[in-house]
């Protein structure tokens, strides 16, 4: 809910970012694993959590979106992980990006020729429409919300199984698809790059049909699926590389080994025995870092910047956070250096002073509450508190998730605020109910620590507004944790959203970030980066903390492992 995963977010970003980010750290990410990937072999992915759903209408998080990229295709998609701008949106099944009408309410796409599902059936406009309309099914369409928020549909439309064809999507011929929007949405190409905008054969996928099996349109298809332990993908013989400009699909097969403990994964990557030379995984644990110090391991290590911001939202409806001075004082007093160390140290985290992370388009570098070495400025904070007569301190309740890394961050916050006589009481909430609790204004406490990521990294439009738009405050699933409802802020959001020039809009989002931080509805804490340790035989690997482009990875030597 709150820690929204990105879908069409970026892969590894520019080298420049990384060089500023770490000193004496791992090798830069542009080179990938060095040698070039060649076709063949099996790439192994080691992971702890199972994918949420094989059905793209249901799943919506960074991990599963990366997986969907191997088996599903949409009209548009996020550019390759090694592209010049990996955040960009490029055509996939469509010949080109969409053409908007004058009023911005109608978007038209034309399909390529020779597209097929893994069963050999052709993919035409009808299949695209059908697949997309599944997002409206009340039981199935629990994934990305963007289609439902942008494409016009009657209130009672409940997906193809219950309500038939989607009235807001037209298919004048086999190759053409026309979308009618609720209101102009300049970033509509991003919406169609969401995982739930993929084609399926008309009539398929009702009930639990796609829970254990899929109908693939991408370069791979499901071979075996054992929930909680193994997913094996093999080539989809009906996928035609000529129709796909982005996916390279080097390996013949993929094996996702699921249910492994994080420590086990790191041990296996460190040892690199057997098939583990062909293995990749998510980011390594902080405790693994001291063990990655040999030249051979350092050589394999790849860094990726953060696409999410870890922040502490301060509930502006509750005293004393209703006073801007208090919120600013907290921002001054926080020892972001100790929070950084608690989050894994300099190689795994950067202190955050802005809402928009460095790697997301629209980021503007500023620090309104500076302190030496990010260690906090209690004196300045106390001055501010004295202005409102709170120099003797106060106490507040901080909601945190029952998860070690977040608890460590919360304890660092707690410790830093002692310096300004502020007592923080930690309210530890079970992981499974955490977002539900803090997203319910009647249940949330004075403050909460959580993370936020943009739904697509090519623009900050999904990064800042959900956190500060006063009109979005809802009884349940609220994302505006500060419950900030400021007329000027709301007006600014509408103003920037209306800008059709996306580059200009991004500049404005950066400015907006700074305007919001002047009000300090939250205290950005850290940007949690990632370090990745691929097997020695992996090539073309551009890992990302948001979504790693699996479709361009391959093996240097398929005979190994």
């Amino acid at each position, binding site marked *: 809910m709150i820690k929204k995963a990105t879908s069409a977010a970026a892969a590894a970003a520019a080298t420049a970012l990384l060089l500023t980010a770490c000193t004496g750290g791992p090798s830069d990410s542009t080179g990938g694993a060095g040698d070039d990937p060649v076709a063949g072999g099996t790439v192994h992915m080691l992971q702890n959590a199972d994918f949420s759903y094989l059905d793209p209408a249901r799943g919506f998080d960074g991990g599963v979106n990366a997986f969907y990229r191997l088996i599903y295709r949409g009209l548009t998609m996020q550019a390759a992980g090694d592209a010049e701008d990996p955040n960009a949106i490029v055509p996939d099944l469509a010949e080109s990006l969409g053409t908007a009408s004058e009023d911005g309410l109608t978007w038209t796409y034309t399909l390529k020729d020779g597209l097929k599902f893994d069963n050999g059936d052709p993919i035409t406009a009808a299949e695209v429409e059908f697949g997309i309309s599944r997002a409206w099914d009340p039981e199935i369409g629990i994934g990305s919300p963007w289609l439902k928020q942008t494409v016009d549909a009657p209130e009672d439309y409940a997906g193809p199984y219950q309500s038939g064809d989607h009235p807001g999507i037209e298919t004048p011929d086999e190759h053409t698809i026309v979308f009618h929007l609720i209101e102009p949405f300049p970033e509509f190409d991003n919406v169609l790059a969401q995982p739930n905008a993929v084609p399926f054969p008309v009539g398929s996928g009702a009930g639990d049909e796609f829970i254990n099996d899929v109908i693939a349109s991408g370069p791979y298809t499901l071979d075996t699926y054992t929930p909680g332990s193994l997913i094996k993908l093999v080539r989809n013989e009906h996928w035609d590389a000529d129709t796909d400009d982005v996916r390279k699909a080097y390996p013949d097969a993929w094996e996702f080994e699921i249910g492994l403990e994080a420590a086990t994964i790191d041990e296996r990557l460190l040892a690199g025995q057997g098939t583990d030379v062909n293995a990749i995984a998510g980011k390594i644990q902080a405790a693994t870092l001291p*063990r990655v110090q040999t030249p051979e391991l350092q050589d394999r290590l790849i860094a990726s910047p953060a696409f999410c911001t870890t922040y502490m939202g301060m509930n502006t409806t509750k005293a004393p956070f209703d006073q801007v001075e208090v919120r600013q004082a907290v921002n001054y007093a926080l020892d972001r250096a*100790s929070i950084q160390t608690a989050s894994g140290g300099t190689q795994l985290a950067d202190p955050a002073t802005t809402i928009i992370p460095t790697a997301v388009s629209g980021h503007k570098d500023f620090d309104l509450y500076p302190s030496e070495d990010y260690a906090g400025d209690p004196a300045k904070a106390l001055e501010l508190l004295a202005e409102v007569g709170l120099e003797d301190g106060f106490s507040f309740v901080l909601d945190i998730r029952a998860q070690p890394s977040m608890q460590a961050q919360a304890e660092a916050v707690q410790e830093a605020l002692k310096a300004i006589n502020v007592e923080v009481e930690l309210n530890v909430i*079970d992981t499974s109910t955490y977002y539900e609790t803090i997203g319910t204004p009647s249940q949330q406490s004075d403050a909460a620590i959580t993370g936020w990521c943009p739904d697509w990294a090519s623009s900050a439009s999904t990064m800042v507004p959900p956190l500060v738009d006063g009109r979005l405050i809802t009884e349940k699933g609220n994302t505006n944790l500060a419950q900030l409802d400021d007329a000027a802020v709301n007006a600014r959001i509408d103003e920037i959203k209306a800008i059709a020039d996306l580059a200009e809009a991004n500049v404005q989002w950066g400015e907006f970030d700074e305007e919001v931080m002047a009000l300090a509805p939250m205290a950005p804490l850290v940007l949690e980066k990632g370090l990745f340790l691929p097997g020695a035989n992996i090539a073309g690997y551009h890992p990302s903390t948001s979504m790693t482009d699996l479709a361009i990875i391959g093996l240097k030597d398929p005979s190994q492992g």
Partner: protein
Amino acid sequence: MTFTPTELEVEGAQGGEAARDNAPPSPPASGRRLARAFLKDRAALACSVYILLVLLMALAAPLIVKLSGWGPYEFDQSAVDPDMAGLPLGAAGGMGAEHWFGVEPGSGRDIFARIVYGARVSMTIALSATVLTSVLGVVFGLTAGYFGGKVDMVVSRVMEFLMAFPALIFMIAVLSALPAENRQFLLVGVISFFGWPYLARIVRGQTMSLKEREFVEAAKASGASSGQIIFKEILPNLASTIIVMTTLAVPGYVGTEAGLSFLGVGVVPPTPSWGQMIASSVPWYAVDPAYFLIPGACLFLLVLSFTVLGDRIRRLAETGGARA
């Protein structure tokens, strides 16, 4: 209907990973003789000393921490290396004159101070759970055994049910679903809830046999009320059994509390607890073994001390000190 038609009784610990032993027979032995025998037993003495030490740590925690110089919550960023994921600087997890037992990775908090404060949690919870369990066990066991009939049937069924229940799974599920405030009380409550049948079963059995003995019959004949018989005749005869069973149960509760904290449903951070310290040391065991060895050793020694002590007391009660 009982589940085990033997003298064997299931005792103490929780969730299938239990410690079992023979039921102690009842004959009481004279106090002075026991004490003398006990003092001759070096292992028992050493264990008592360790337990007293931990108790002392728990009671005088703030004072001890003043001596050692670091509080349990104080961060020491100078003791860890931010470029190395917050690994403690120096050998053996940063042990030295400044931090006697080293520091926690990441935060640099003093492990000695956290061990001292952690003793509070372990001791409070284990001892409270023991008291509560004993009270429940004795009350239900006595009631069932003395009154028999329908009362006995109901209590016995409840005991069977509780003992068949996968307690560990359930404790974790309940604790993680309930709000985290007042965790200490919840921990004690949940541990006792599943713990009392083990004592109650034995108390029930012994009450049933005591009830038939002449002195009880005599008291009954002389017109004593049920209350008088229970408190004056039966309870004193159960004393040694209760003491032995209780001592044998303590290590189980220490272990259960640490286990629940290890699984993340124990006391709320930043309050330190040994189990939780061990849990947070798991990812670090390869690079900072001191971080898990210290709380691990403290916990192991405490459980061992209680086990040995319980064992010795049981043996003394059995033999009246003859063989100790």
